[in-house]
């Protein structure tokens, strides 16, 4: 192994553009290096290109331009196997494990021994040995699908370490194990002390400051520079990540209308695992009012949104939209009643991924003129309409009728959904995590948009985990806890600490 502080992996002028997909490069001349014995953090928002760099450095993607050097020697990586051979091991974000196989079987897959052998017992012993050595405990005989997310991640790290790499690349490892990140950082620190070079990818500034020796910030495919963690702080990193921006000033006039747009009475529903998810939720939203549902996800917010939009059955209670009972009606009827839905899982619920951008944008409108004339689609109108939404929301797409939605980044899909669900100025909007994956500028635009919709009389049910968002937008704030509304606060007067305490304890402050 190289001495401490020597550069062991270096990327020079790395460019990557996926053919036909983007008008700009996904990676634009990135320089990055990893030294032996250090943790180098790669920090950036979703869609900044972090994963693409990792895939390029590990041999999964081919470079469009640029050079990779291992210990100063240029190398060409054509496949992950080349990466492994040069001592580069990558822990993928969506773990590269075959679920029905055991941990040991997954490791056997990557061995270069003869195909007719089956060195299982040998691998099992070595896994136990590595588990001890790195204190990443894992049962080699356990089936991957039976393991928890944290255990699966440990298995993946052990799998990579099995090949004796010198460089370890971890792509957003904390996204799977938000509660157990400390343990991972300990393990990474001890690996670094042993002389491994570690490239750690995250979108969380705190983690970059806590875990790394150096941090490189990425914004929209460009490197914003590399800093030593000891000599930088949160403010500087925020500036590098998002660019200079002034927080928007949102003006809020009092709610004008007394008309109730959405009323939910004593609602109960079951979660996917048949456990009670909603246990008697009641509230009303007036026209021109935003109610923010705060709380840790998994306390019934998703189910609430699904019941209102007709995607989940209510076992008790009522959903009343503009005075008419819509309990357990079909999603189609509820859409026609004027309810828009910005869904939680944008890829699964928000779009049909293999369909094109234009098709997805008009998905809910094709039944009516002028989007269709009789049985035929009105192509010129659809094209114009999609073009308008794409440019108004600043979505990056290459071709409206050719690009599959699948290849867009999460943030761009979110922009399309926002456009589709709000252009009609709907009477009622159920918005679940509406700004997920957007950069700071787009978040500001979305907040402004919501305020305009509010002015125009939309009733908005906002579910968010981001307290800033809840506090900036909501007229009233409902805190969800274990399927109930733990308390309803006035948006203007609520204090951050008050909401935080309520989220944590599930009870209003006494």
């Amino acid at each position, binding site marked *: 192994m190289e001495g401490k502080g020597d550069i062991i992996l270096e990327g020079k002028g790395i460019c990557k553009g996926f053919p036909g997909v983007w008008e700009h490069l996904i990676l634009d001349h990135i320089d990055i290096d990893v030294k032996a014995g250090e943790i180098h953090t790669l920090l950036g928002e979703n869609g900044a290109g972090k994963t693409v760099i990792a895939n390029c450095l590990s041999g999964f993607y081919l470079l469009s331009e640029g050079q990779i050097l291992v210990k100063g020697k240029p190398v060409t990586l054509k496949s992950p196997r080349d990466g492994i051979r040069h001592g580069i091991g990558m822990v993928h974000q969506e773990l590269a494990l075959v679920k029905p196989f055991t941990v040991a079987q997954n490791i056997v897959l*990557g061995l270069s021994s003869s195909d007719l*052998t*089956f060195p299982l017992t040998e691998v099992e012993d070595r896994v136990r040995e590595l588990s001890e050595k790195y204190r990443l405990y894992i049962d080699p005989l356990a089936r991957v699908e039976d393991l928890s997310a944290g255990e699966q991640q440990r298995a993946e790290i052990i799998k990579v370490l099995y090949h004796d790499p010198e460089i370890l690349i971890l792509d957003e490892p904390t996204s799977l194990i938000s509660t157990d990140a400390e343990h991972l950082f300990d393990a990474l620190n001890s690996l670094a002390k042993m002389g491994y070079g570690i490239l750690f990818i995250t979108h969380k500034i705190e983690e970059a400051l806590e875990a790394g020796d150096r941090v490189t910030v990425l914004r929209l495919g460009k490197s914003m520079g590399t800093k030593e963690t000891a000599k930088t702080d949160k403010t500087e990193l925020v500036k590098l990540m998002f660019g200079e921006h002034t927080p928007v000033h949102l003006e809020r006039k009092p709610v004008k209308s007394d008309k109730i747009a959405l009323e939910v009475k004593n609602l109960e529903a079951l979660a996917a695992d048949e456990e009670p998810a909603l246990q008697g939720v009641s509230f009303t939203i007036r026209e021109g009012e935003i109610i923010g549902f705060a709380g840790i996800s998994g306390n019934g917010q998703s189910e609430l949104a699904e019941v209102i939009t007709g995607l989940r059955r209510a076992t008790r209670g009522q959903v009343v939209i503009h005075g008419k009972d819509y309990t357990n009606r079909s999603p189609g009827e509820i859409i026609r009643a004027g309810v828009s839905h910005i869904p939680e899982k944008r890829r699964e619920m928000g779009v049909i991924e293999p369909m094109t951008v234009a098709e997805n944008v008009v998905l809910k409108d094709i039944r009516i003129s002028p989007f269709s004339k009789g049985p035929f689609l009105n192509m010129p109108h659809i094209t114009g309409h999609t073009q308008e939404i794409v440019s108004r929301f600043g979505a990056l797409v290459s071709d409206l009728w050719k690009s599959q939605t699948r290849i867009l980044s999460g943030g761009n899909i979110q922009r399309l959904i926002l456009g589709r669900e709000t252009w009609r100025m709907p009477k009622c909007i159920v918005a679940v995590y509406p700004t997920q994956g957007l950069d700071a500028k787009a978040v500001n635009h979305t907040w402004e948009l919501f305020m305009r919709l509010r002015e125009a009389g939309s009733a908005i049910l906002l579910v968010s985990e981001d307290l800033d968002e809840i506090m900036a937008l909501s007229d009233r704030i409902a805190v969800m806890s274990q399927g109930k509304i733990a308390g309803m606060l006035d948006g203007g007067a609520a204090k951050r600490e008050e909401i935080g305490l309520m989220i944590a304890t599930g009870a209003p402050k006494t």
Partner: protein
Amino acid sequence: MNLAFLRGIFIGSLHAMVPITLTATGEVIGESSGLFNIGLEGIILMSAMTGALGAEAGGPIAGLLIGVATGAAIGLVFGSICTYFKGVQLIAGVGINLFAAGLVTFWLIDLGVPGHHAVADEGQMVDISTPLGDLSPMIIVAFVLPVLTYILLFRTKLGLKIRAVGENPQAADVAGINVHRLRLLSTVVGASLAGLAGAYISVDWMGSVTKEISAGRGFIALATVVFSGLNPMLVLLGGFIFGFFDNLAVWVSTMPAVQRVIPWQFVSMAPYIVTLLVVAGVIGRVRFPAAMGIPYERE
């Protein structure tokens, strides 16, 4: 009913199970790797034809080998379309069936008697005499191959790799496995066994080629694969069940006494109805590779 009678049914079933077992064993390998070949019926038909002509030219063994080669060649085309060219597997498979049906019909016309061609005696495989009765040596092959395939899939690293590319091709790619090449290899091996099955039918079992000689056995083999849940040992059992009913239909056609009770047309339906029932019974309970039928793309 006497003992000789039952023995006859048993021997007939053993012969009838050979093509289904061979084809299904091959398809287990292919489906484990993630490719679903609906063109097995066409491969059986084509190799029955080429195998018969090969046997007349160079003896029964040459005929069987020509059948294997025919299957491999079709498998190579099918596999390439479904991996490197990212084609739709269903369409490619249906293409094979249509191509085979057309070509064999034309070929038989060209040979003289439309629709039928008897394989010359010297081209036919000779059965071996056993205390049980005359048995084709191919029955042994049909019993041994599933066992070998089981060992390959579940007891070797190659088998683990094949199952990995079917289950999670991306993880396999990351592990350094050439996904396209391994899927192609698996489907070529699978198609070769279907080719062997086709040649067995014409060269050994029936001793003739007709344009309907495959008689749905490719599809029954697909059903056997479903029944087995991709376990080659269960292919043996499934193959025998389907073979039994296949043979039953033939047997009833020689028994006027039975025919007075049940018209033979109904008995001929038996193998197909049993297929439907078995598949309807087990489907949903069987777990198939997660990535089966989906072309793999890295970027």
